[in-house]
């Protein structure tokens, strides 16, 4: 199934993803060149959402691999079911050792992990490799191999070839420099915080029933807060939390409720330092500017 660029744009809108034009191009290009897409950007800009939207556009399953320090092939690719293997060995005690070995290292005892699952589906899924920068360099090298060959070799079982080539989206928060090889293998897109209009649209889509004017006010306010020197810049998820809170308090105009605005900012400011920085005066000043 190939879609052209406009088509992808439209489909993203129907699945409730408010896209900027460039991300639609990147997703189309990914389809056209059959290359993985590397998304970079600050935490909370909505990188993971892109993968979810892509899965929804293609009606495909989303398989997610969350990377972390020390992630190894056991957790990412496959693992043997040790408990069942031990039981099987006990149950077959006395039999020929070779036969037992062949039995316990068969598909029945194999536990699929995300990477193996992604290449063994009938219909190509979307494989999201989240925060790849958290994994070690060794894992990255292994990933690179998988992404170019789409086959996996399991020593006890043999080589497993992909039945379907997944669409691969990688995200990185930039906590570590990724290798040039991985970068070159992928298309690149830098995801920025949405601009005011787009953020307002996102609020409208995600929080049904909210005032258009309020959504715009919130988006402007968030944009102003992001310009402050904060340790943790509020992401889109925080915006949505805050918007939901304000809507829940039945606030219709931020200007009339400076108290509530300041108090509900705990949805946005998640460190003590940031909280101290945005004092009541600061929040009123920001409010005065945007609302």
């Amino acid at each position, binding site marked *: 199934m190939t879609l052209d*660029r406009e088509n992808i744009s439209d489909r993203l809108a129907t699945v409730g993803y408010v896209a900027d*034009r*460039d991300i639609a*191009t*990147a997703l*189309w*290009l990914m389809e*056209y*060149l*059959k*290359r993985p*897409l590397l998304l*970079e950007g600050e935490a909370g800009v909505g990188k993971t959402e892109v993968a979810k939207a892509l899965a929804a556009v293609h009606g495909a399953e989303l398989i997610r691999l969350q990377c972390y320090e020390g992630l190894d092939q*056991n957790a990412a690719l496959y*693992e*043997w079911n*040790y408990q069942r*293997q*031990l039981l099987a*060995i*006990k149950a077959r*005690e006395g039999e020929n*050792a070779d036969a*037992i*070995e062949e039995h*316990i290292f068969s598909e029945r005892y194999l536990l699929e992990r995300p990477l193996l699952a992604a290449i063994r589906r009938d219909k190509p899924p979307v494989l999201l490799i989240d925060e790849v*920068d958290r994994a*070690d360099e060794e894992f990255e090298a292994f990933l690179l191999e998988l992404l*170019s060959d789409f086959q996996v070799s399991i020593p*006890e079982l043999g080589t497993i070839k992909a039945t379907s*080539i997944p669409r691969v989206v990688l995200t990185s*928060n*930039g*906590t*570590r*420099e990724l290798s*040039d090889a991985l*970068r*070159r*293998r*992928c*298309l*690149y*897109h*830098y995801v920025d915080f949405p601009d005011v209009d787009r953020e307002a649209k996102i609020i409208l889509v995600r929080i049904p029933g909210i005032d258009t004017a309020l959504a715009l006010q919130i988006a402007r306010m968030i944009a102003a807060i992001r310009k402050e020197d904060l340790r943790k810049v509020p992401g889109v998820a925080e915006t949505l939390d805050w918007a939901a809170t304000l809507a829940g308090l039945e606030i219709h105009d931020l200007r009339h409720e400076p108290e509530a605005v300041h108090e509900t900012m705990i949805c946005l400011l998640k460190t003590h330092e940031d909280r101290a920085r945005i004092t009541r005066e600061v929040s009123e000043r920001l409010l005065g500017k945007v609302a």
Partner: protein
Amino acid sequence: MAPMSAAATSRPGESIGGPTRRRLAAFSRVLRQNGFKVGLAETRDALALLALPLAARPSALRPALRSLFCATHSDWERFDDIFDAFWRGRGLRQTRTLSGSPTDGRAPLRRIAEAAGPQGPAGLPDHVERRHDGDSPGGRGRREGASRFDNLAATDMRHIVDPDDVAQTHALAARLARVMRARLVRRERIHRRGRRLDLRRTIHRSVSHGGTPVDLAWRRRKIKPLRLVVLLDASGSMSLYTAFFVRFLHGVVDSFREAEAFVFHTRLAHVSASLRDRDVARAVDRLALMAQGIGGGTRIGESLATFNRWHARRVIHSRTAVMIVSDGYDTGEPAELAAQMRRLRRRCRRIIWLNPLIGWRDYAPRARGMQAALPYVDLFAPAHNLASLAALEPYLARI
């Protein structure tokens, strides 16, 4: 690398004329000169894109080519300018800057200095000094102090002016960086004691014992190697030492697997990539150009702020030592410097401040900037000669 690339199968560019091809090749070249990693695969895919109807509209072509050609955030930020300059206004593509325009913390557009040919390393330090002529206090005219020293390592670098001695000092600096690294690695191996059970192999081995795990397989804990992040002050007041430290930096980046280098005066530039050049002379020369002061004094606080804001998260992990090489003469606000040092302190394992002035007689860290930074520094050490650098090695090994 890209076996199932659509472009590869459909033989791209059949319908594309020679001029467009040449233009694209030229564009790839410009990107490469600006530090983009553009390979054949990218150019081929781009050719395929140009053959599509979408290529007629720059508004659609630009984001497509951007996704294709960019690999990092700094590529991403510079791409639009380069694209517009190249495709929309010929001739503008010469407007790259080497270190000139202060574009807050972004990697400057750079062009590989073609001029830096087979120049010997001895010619380089002169280069740097000359450029600093204007603002270096007593930068020249110290020739009367030049004489041969038996032990270059103990000599203050200010006093090494004979080209041969300079070359030798630089070679020593590079070697020192390498030796430091070798020793550090050896110490790490000895410390590796953490072990944990490898279940997969244990089960495999237990088969022959009827499922009883007699023969246990162990895994070793992996220890992250120490990462060294060096921030080098390249301001006018440091100019007597800059050439030497640039050389040391090259040695560090070249031999430590995990090392990052930054240079700052009024702004901060990430220079690891430039230093990874195999050709030492070219790398050092290019860096010397980047490190050129542009006047206006040293902004240590602001440079650290840039570092904390844009680079720290990526280059600092739990086993990172940050080494700041500076004389502490800061023209910015001491309060800002202190605040940034505090932020940095929280992130990294150790802060080492190397100050060439410590080697001078009767030196006391009285500069306001130095005073502000000192409370956050773990090790405040001299760095006026090679012996003082060598003395760091045991300290680094203990971290």
